[in-house]
């Protein structure tokens, strides 16, 4: 099970954070800070695993990937495979999260994430739900996300058809 997905920049500012077991907001901020404290002291080109039990409690592992100004962090328990989690962010055989973001924003950069907060959530909710990875194909994720944004614009622009809209995919 995945416990948390965090995206933050190299200065420690969170750009996106999702915790799958409820954490009070103060605790969330504290966890993000401690994760940053560990990540910022790590050299380039070292392994992507970080000892996380001191931060997140027993049976937790942490992998991260560093792209330009961003850290992508996944926290999970022993039911997940470490390399598969790296692939979930981005990997040679499979790349889910970053590839989807790339497709969505055409060469994703930090600013895209800053200004597309809701879309990030839509994307991640398609990949992971309740801590379980439910979709690993970026095209499937894209398909769902596009449908959702269509639905959003439709429900916003047409005032009276909301009922028809909800029956739209019937």
């Amino acid at each position: 099970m995945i416990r948390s997905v965090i995206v933050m920049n190299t200065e420690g500012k969170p750009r996106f954070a999702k915790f799958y077991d409820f954490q009070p907001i103060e605790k969330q901020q504290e966890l993000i800070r401690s994760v940053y404290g560990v990540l910022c002291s790590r050299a380039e080109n070292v392994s992507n695993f970080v000892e996380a039990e001191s931060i997140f409690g027993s049976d937790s592992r942490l992998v991260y990937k560093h792209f330009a100004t961003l850290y992508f962090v996944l926290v999970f328990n022993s039911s997940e495979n470490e390399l598969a989690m790296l692939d979930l962010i981005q990997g040679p055989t499979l790349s889910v999260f970053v590839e989807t973001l790339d497709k969505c924003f055409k060469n994703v950069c930090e600013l895209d994430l800053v200004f597309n907060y809701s879309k990030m959530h839509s994307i991640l909710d398609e990949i992971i739900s309740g801590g379980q990875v439910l979709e690993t194909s970026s095209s499937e994720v894209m398909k769902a996300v596009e449908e959702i944004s269509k639905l959003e614009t439709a429900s916003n622009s047409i005032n009276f058809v909301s009922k028809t809209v909800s029956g739209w995919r019937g």
Partner: protein
Amino acid sequence: MAGSSLMDSLFQRTLDDLIKGLRLQLIGESAFISKAMDEIRREIKSTDPQTKSTALQKLSYLNSLHGIDMNWAAFHVVEVMSSSRFAQKKIGYHAASQSFHEATPVLLLITNQLRKDLTSTNEFEVSLALDCLSRFATVDLARDLTPEIFTLLSSSKVFVRKKAIGVVLRVFGKYPDAVRVCFKRLVENLESSDPRILSAVVGVFCELASQDPRSYLPLAPEFYRILADSKNNWVLIKVLKIFKNLAPLEPRLARKIVEPITEHMRRTGAKSLLFECIRTVVTSLSDFETAVRLAVEKTREFLVDDDPNLKYLGLHALSILVPKHSWAVLENKEVVIKSLSDVDPNVKLESLRLVMAMVSDNNVTEICRVLVNLALKSDPEFCNEILGSILATCGESVYEIIIDFDWYVSLLGEMSRIPYCRKGEEIENQLIDIGMRVKDARPTLVSVGRDLLIDPALLGNPFMDRILSAAAWVSGEYVQFSGKPFELLEALLQPRSNLLPPSVRAVYVQSAFKVMIFCLNSYIQEQNIDSSSYIDTLVENGSESISARECQDASALASCDVSDQFEQVEVFNPRGSNQPPKVTFAENDRETLTRVQTCTSASLEDNSSSLGSIVELLNFIQFSLGPLTWSHDVELLERSRNLLNFIDLIRQQIPDGLNEKDGSAERELAEISKIVELILDAFSDDFGPVSINAQERVPIPEGLILKENLDDLKMICSDIELSEGSYSFGNSLYEEKVDSSILSQQIPQESESSNATTSLLSEHRKRHGLYYLPSDKTDDASNDYPPANELKEQDILDDDAAHLVKLAERSLAMKKKSTSAKPRPVVVRLDEGDELPVTRKKPQLNDEQLSDAVRDVLVGSDARPTSSQTDQSSKPSNRRKGKEKQNAGNPSDSKENLGNVEEQSSNMVDTSLRRTHRHHGKDGKQASLEKNSEKKDQTHKKSKRTSSQRHGRHKAKQSGDTSLPVASQTVIPDFLL
């Protein structure tokens, strides 16, 4: 009012505006946020749903990324959730999943809203509700919405069904009775052909099985089929994880899955799957030699890979193998040792663990030597990791692997001097523990302690304090092994000891007391011998070992010239260290010196044999401790006063004049010896280790309630931490431990006064320099520490690595027991209670309920259809209902009766076997081939293994009855044989 609301909605900032404003930072972030919050608070009360939802969206953004509280807005969240517009609903659901938790009161209000959305025809609305439910489903919500989840589990839309499967985990966790309703449907999804469904459902089972594997054993055939059939790496990884938990419970299962797993290992190109295979083999299938061989082979590919991730995981896999297959590490020892100086901290750490796991009593000396050298070159963090693991490994089960304690004690001393050493507490504990447990190690312990105490550079490093405290205690307690107690006393009372915290200084003073008593005692013992014959015998007996010059010294000693006497100290010290610690006056002294043991060196006798030196000693102590009588630390104050008063007592008996040695002095000696003997008796009892269970053996007095709630005391006691060692410190040290925390606040004035003393003492030193330790050590040793070794360049590092490999080559290899080793000294071990009792974690109530429910469904008789289920089955279309019945008749029906009737179970075996066979005939054949080859080494089971599976079926039943113990609660189908 309406006007302002209109203005709000017309000129409302959107989330984008908010983000842009935050980035502009015109008025500073916190000011901007508080302004935005004012707006949000106003807007969120708006009657216009659009305004409200936008405000909520901004709020949840600020909540998630800037830590702004949004619990106050819970009711607004519910309002926005119920909006009919999808965009707004989505904002509401997002806010809910972010901020709601089990204690949120408004959860009671949303049951109907969730139900409505779960049954919506729009799959995205359903998905929103499911996402939310997976985050904060409470017992009530889970119970009330189970029927809806049940329906969605067989939804025709993959998009919805996979999310419903994902939600099941949370629902089961909260409301175990949901298992009785939903479990069958969940299991049916294992047969889905859609990889996304399969991936989701296997993920759920993986999570469930990791909590309680036994309950899911009956599903093994399903998982096996997936393992053999699936081509999806995600699915395979999860199935492997399930089998990793199931295989140890059922040997037949392990035998069955080895084949497909090795097949995957050979075939796959995906590192993640390959690693999962390796991990499964090394954790759960380590009895299968061929599989382990292959896994080690593949692990080696990881180890030599450039990717540090793979290297790390490879090392990790090896470390799992160590207990059973240490050859795997030996085969890769070069890589392992090289990795010790890798740049990657994870790799270093993992290889360190591996090396430590390989340590045995044969190679511990060599490995520790290599590691301590490495620690000297490492960065502080890794250095301490190394030291910590050496201490932990060597101290394990009462120093089991240590044979040569003299070596180990010296190693402890060496480790203390490593500049980055932060392991003071552990070293302290071990020094004292070894002192108490290993009698034979005490001489070395004292000499190591002396070396530490005497080095002024070590004072002032807060990380050394604990070690010095142990060194002081050891030197005081076992002073009889010290060659030069005078020197020890100087070290204990050296001026720079004012850099120590009072708690440690108190130990110093107490040890000084013990040393002084020892000196007095040996002086008295000597005086009891006739002094003239004393010198004669010295000349006669010592003719072999004592040179003429020393005889001169000895006569000079008799003349008792003070300044000469001081020279004695200087002259004799080097000799004392050169000379083997042999008793010069053994013949005469043996009867009288009861406590002084044979290794007492000659120089001590010479020193203490003079009254002048004793007086000087007392003067010195008085002078050094004088300032402490104004100490603000109670313990220190008390101990130094004790000591000073004792000296006063003695002094009354010893005439001040140094020339009145004969006559009157002897009479007085009798008085002193009485006192000294008394104190000596008090110190002479040995401390021993105390079992941690000792307390338990004390019967509880009547009327004493041990379980009383003492929470109130927590506050008072919070700053007193008791160490949980397996020994007690006896009175003196125990007190010291406690007051170290109580009295740790240093009072500023003290440092002032101690500065004053320092200058006073330096004056004293100028006048009586001879009495002090050689000046290059004490004189003006600065507070600075020896400079830490800097990290070397990479190329040198590589050289080091090569050197390391060479060094460790020999040591890692399992050597035959060295024959020349000296016999291991006796280590005091208590029969029980040296280890902390291991308490097993009890499963939580909810978990138990869950596994009970699962077992009921899988093993027990028909799962009683609950009202909700019957309710439900009448609702959906006839087509679905029919399908469900069909399914129920097939695999799960037979599964229900598994445990009850053997006959039926073998029927079931038949079906599942045939199915496997059909799907994967090739695998099946290979499996039987494998079995044939295994026949050789398993002769006693020969009859049960036949190449024909059809034939084997009957045999399987037999073997299940006879040889293999069937799990008591759950039964796994015999298809595995």
